[in-house]
């Protein structure tokens, strides 16, 4: 068993949109609360930390209950509860930077103007990358409604591109007919990288009451059950867009599964639900992958140069 608490010299880094990562494993937005996670491991050792989505003002999120279990999966509808960008800029962001973390700030909004306000505020701060969340299925406006419409997405990203020089990742939704057209719209609008996938829309019902378990009724499905779906999305976008950096997300709970994403054409991966079941899972997975890449020098060299397996 890997001891994640002993000092480790990372052997296999990667580069995503020009930003060096210590290793190709980050945390996925929505499953990372610094105040809770920092008690369990040294978060600065991750390839990158994608923080919980930040909105222009505090959002209180959806009513409870907000989650339901499903086989090899979890359905949640938190609704991007967060204390707002002003709080983030004086709390999580400076703390993460002081720890030495590579920080991806996940940007949430109900409207184009919301996204623009947050991106503008972040432009002069220490965040290493921005991740535009146009794929949350649990907010009534913005979120997925933008990320499933290539025309609206192009317009939003093109506008945000004028507001920041920071590397901008667009996080894509799997709840679309044609992921490639959405991916192309994001890239044409000026995205520097893509992350995929956000959660799939889903539900569970309480068979005693006949009602949905989650108060929001629908939620987003995450967890190991999503692995083949996410790999399929990453692979299709990689075939269509050979050069855009891709961060693979969906069902990564081991170094081997992270490796699958790299073979599908991702530059890096993020760990989401696995952290809900085991607080130290993200760092353990990063360490497992670091060892697995020892015996795959061709892949490791490509990643180190910011290139991907084809």
């Amino acid at each position, binding site marked *: 068993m890997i001891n994640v608490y002993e000092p480790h010299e990372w052997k296999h880094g990667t580069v995503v949109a020009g930003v060096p990562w210590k290793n190709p494993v980050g945390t996925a937005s929505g499953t990372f609360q610094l105040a*809770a996670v920092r008690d369990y491991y040294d978060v600065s050792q991750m390839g990158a930390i994608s923080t919980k989505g930040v909105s222009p003002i505090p959002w*209180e999120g959806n009513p409870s209950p907000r989650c339901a279990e499903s086989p090899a999966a979890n359905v949640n509808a938190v609704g991007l509860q967060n204390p707002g960008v002003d709080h983030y800029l004086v709390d999580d962001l400076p703390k993460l930077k002081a720890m030495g973390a590579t920080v991806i700030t996940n940007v949430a909004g109900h409207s184009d103007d919301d996204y623009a306000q947050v991106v503008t505020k972040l432009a002069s701060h220490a965040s290493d990358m921005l991740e535009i969340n146009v794929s949350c299925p649990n907010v009534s406006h913005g979120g997925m409604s933008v990320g499933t419409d290539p025309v609206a997405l192009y317009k939003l990203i093109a506008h945000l591109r004028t507001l920041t020089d920071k590397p901008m990742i667009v996080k894509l939704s799997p709840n679309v007919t044609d992921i490639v057209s959405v991916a192309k719209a994001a890239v044409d609008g000026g995205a520097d990288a893509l992350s995929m996938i956000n959660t799939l829309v889903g539900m569970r019902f309480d068979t005693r009451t006949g009602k949905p378990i989650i108060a929001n009724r629908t939620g987003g499905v995450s967890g190991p059950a999503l692995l083949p779906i996410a790999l399929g999305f990453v692979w299709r976008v990689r075939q269509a867009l050979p050069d855009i950096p891709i961060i693979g997300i969906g069902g990564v709970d081991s170094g081997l599964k992270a490796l699958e994403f790299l073979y599908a054409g991702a530059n890096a991966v993020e760990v989401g639900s696995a*952290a809900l079941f085991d607080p130290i899972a993200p760092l353990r997975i990063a360490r497992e992958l670091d060892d697995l890449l020892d015996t795959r020098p061709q892949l490791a060299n490509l990643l180190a140069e910011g290139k991907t397996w084809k």
Partner: protein
Amino acid sequence: MTASTPVSQPMDTTLQADTTLLGDVPPIVQYALQAGFKAPRHEVRVHHVQPLTDGVIEFAIIDPYIARHAQAGQFINLYSHDDMRLMPRPFGVAQVQGDVVSVIFAVVGEGTEEFSHMRQGDTIDVLGPLGKPYAIDMPAHYVLVGGGLGVPPLIRTAQLLRQQHAEHTSTDTASRSVTTAVLGYRNVHFADSMMQAYADQTLSIDDSQGNVIDVLQHDIAQHITVVTSDERGSGHMAVDEQGLPYVLLSCGPHGMMKAVAHWAAEHHMQCQLSLEQRMGCGYGTCVVCTVDTARGRLKVCNDGPVFTREELGWN
């Protein structure tokens, strides 16, 4: 209402405790602690699994770390062996004897069903102890009001108060706390004997007899004297016949706790309530188990589960 179960004396559990120092803290936990982090999810052995009444199970693990650190009202996450069932199952620590940590739960779904079939020596993964505990440092007359499966964390609370008592009697008899348990059940009084081992007084009632408010009204209210609080000047504070301030700690169904909080407010008692909410991670990172409080929308798992009556606005 009918009379509740009569007063009982605490039993001596010292001998039992001495026979149950069974294991070492697992290496992964030691590494985490040495590096300055919390104990991670780790594997332990099952000590025993015992039915208490229909569908209610006492489930005990050997975990020296949690045994030494589980505070009043804290909970642990247990994890299924089935990769289809990934979400942790959170349970309040009911009792600690030596290295043995027990929880009590009802078999209500696939996860608890799986745990109920485990046997001594089986392995299981655990995380904890988790959550903000009840504050029990102040010398007081603690009234522990539990309902159904909300009773177990109050047993641990009574156990810790009993330990404080044992530590205090040698030096400072004046400052020792007193514990009265008020327990409500649907039918079988499955936890009375465990509570009686620690509480100075255990009163219990079931649905055929009445409810916990009846017991509070019948057996506690008459002993209350309301004095002007020194600290707050104009405030009022309930004290018992020895002058100890009353502090009510509750865990149980939502409706019961609201009624209990209201009763405590009427009687000028401090009141701390342990909430239940559908949880995800159990340690504060997924933000699904929220409750609306005077301090905003907070997480039950690590901002709570214990909140004061004032925080919840349950007056």
